[in-house]
């Protein structure tokens, strides 16, 4: 047994390739006789096989992003800005108190708890700050300055100003509706964002009606629809949704069902099919603004300009760069899976545009950085085949060499 203990320790060095010949010989002799140590050897051999894999590395763009963030936050101050905060003792005590409170709430007799009051018919909300409210089976996130009137009987929200992000979680006989002074949005699916000038569907489908109830458009997931005037009028800035409800929302706070998670007000990749083109809007200027915002790391601001450029109906020659910027924005927002899909969309829609080259390499690089080596190799091979003298060929070959070191 003593021999087994020593052999097991020596096995680790054998796996690391650090054992002397004498040790290796002793170990192998022992293994021939000892089934138990052979089993240990087998399990450690798996770690040895894992060790033979190339060490994980970030791609060049990920490293560049890190350097930029470290530099932007000022070196020694980077820790406060970039390192995740850890719960201090005070916070842990606070969490414990909150947990206790929740326990008391759950364990309390039913009579102690007040049932959530429904939103009163005709309730008008003029929000001074962003917030979330549950209404008729939907989570409604509204921005600062939004004016809404709730009609529970018709399951309708009338909006005159601002922006709402609606996530319908319950399907009922009556369709959920959001009305604006110009059009009506009827929900066929689940998640969408409405402004007075347009609607963007994030999940499912919505139907856009005119005020007489005639269908204007059906907007599917990833698409957006705008009215003619939308691109002319500058979009009003929308504040990010605060977790704390507004003073108005607080009066109806019990209706905020805990099961309805606050839907984000962030935008998603929108393959817009703007119904009306808007001559006069300088798409090139919007693209330049979006690019500058992305360079500054402000994806939300970039998204605003990209959306305006899309709504303006860019010329066919401008379309690839707008789509590429949309994908770049997703990357800056650190949504790599969606960015990969968006870059692939650029490739699919504009295979002959110069932007396709960037998109093609970006797909390979992102897949590599995510650890999807097989798919990354396919994408990078594809890039190298399409653009044998391309701008990123050297980097693509470097990545491929990391994926296939034996070649």
């Amino acid at each position: 047994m003593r021999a087994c203990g020593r052999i097991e320790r020596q096995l680790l060095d054998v796996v690391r390739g650090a054992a002397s010949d004498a040790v290796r010989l002793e170990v192998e002799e022992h293994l021939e006789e000892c089934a138990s140590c052979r089993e240990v050897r087998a399990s450690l051999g798996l770690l040895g096989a894992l060790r033979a894999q190339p060490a994980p590395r970030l791609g060049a763009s990920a490293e560049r992003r890190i350097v930029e963030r470290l530099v932007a936050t000022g070196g020694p101050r980077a820790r406060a800005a970039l390192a995740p905060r850890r719960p201090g003792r005070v916070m842990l005590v606070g969490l414990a108190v909150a947990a206790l409170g929740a326990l008391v709430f759950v364990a309390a007799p039913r009579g102690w708890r007040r049932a959530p009051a429904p939103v009163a018919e005709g309730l008008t909300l003029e929000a001074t700050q962003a917030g979330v409210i549950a209404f008729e089976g939907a989570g409604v996130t509204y921005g600062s300055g939004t004016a809404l009137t709730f009609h529970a009987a018709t399951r309708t929200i009338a909006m005159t100003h601002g922006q709402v992000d609606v996530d319908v979680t319950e399907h009922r006989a009556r369709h959920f509706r959001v009305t604006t002074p110009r059009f009506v949005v009827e929900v066929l699916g689940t998640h969408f964002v409405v402004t007075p000038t347009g609607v963007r569907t994030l999940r499912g489908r919505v139907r856009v009606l005119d005020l007489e109830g005639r269908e204007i458009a059906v907007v599917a997931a990833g698409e957006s629809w705008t009215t003619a005037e939308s691109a002319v009028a500058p979009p009003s800035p929308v504040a990010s949704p605060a977790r704390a409800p507004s003073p108005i929302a607080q009066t109806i706070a019990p209706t905020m069902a805990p099961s309805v998670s606050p839907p984000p007000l962030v935008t998603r990749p929108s393959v817009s099919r703007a119904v009306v083109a808007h001559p006069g809007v300088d798409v090139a200027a919007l693209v330049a603004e979006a690019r500058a915002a992305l360079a500054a790391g402000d994806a939300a601001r970039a998204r605003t300009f990209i959306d305006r450029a899309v709504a303006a109906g860019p010329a066919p020659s401008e379309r690839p760069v707008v789509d590429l910027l949309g994908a770049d924005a997703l990357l800056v927002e650190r949504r790599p899976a969606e960015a990969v899909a968006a870059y692939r969309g650029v490739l699919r829609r504009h295979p002959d545009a110069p932007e396709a080259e960037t998109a093609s390499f970006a797909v390979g690089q992102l897949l590599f950085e995510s650890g999807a080596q097989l798919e990354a190799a396919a994408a990078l091979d594809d890039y190298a085949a399409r653009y044998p003298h391309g701008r990123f060929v050297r980097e693509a070959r470097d990545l491929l060499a990391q994926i296939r070191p034996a070649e």
Partner: protein
Amino acid sequence: MSTPAKAHAVPELAADDPCLAGCRAGRPEAIEKLFRTYAGMVEGVIGRIVGPTPDFEDLVQTTFAEALGNLGRFRGEAKISTWLCGIAVHVAHHHLRAGKVRRHVSLELVTDDRATALPALVDQSVADKTIDGRRLASKLHALCDRIAPKKRIALLLYVMEDRSVEEIAALMRATQTATRSRMYFARRELRKLIRADAELRDLADGLLGATLEGDA
């Protein structure tokens, strides 16, 4: 127990390198130099310990952010690489303790058109090897998730990063006895887990057979 040669030599800055003073002053070129010098080492340590994770970039960034924030307290008694490695181990440990490791990178990044694109674009033997390697790595790291972080880190640093027990003890601020004990229990737990997994058991048996034949 012999001390093995390091798997990869780490370029080293001297403790009085002007780059460090530049980092303390927040100079961009100095910060970039520090990062470029040690990025490979930090990425290797974190990647080996944590395994494939979408938080990889965050963890590397956090390591350097912590390092820059604490650079004023670096007295030059250890090599910068050792000091940074200690921070990387700490960051990885914190990540594992927080239970975020379950978020392994999956095939979620791959869209539907991938399936049709692959056969024509990737040599099949390379594809098979890559799949085997990824599959093995993914399964082993999933098993490692079930081993306590301190034990797991000690074993992986020893086997994968070629660190000595003395180094691991210093990096984890533990005694050598505790480190050896952690490695022992990690090995034992890993063996149990592999024994319970039919696919890994077969793979391990196959590897053992190949090793013995090769040795003969």
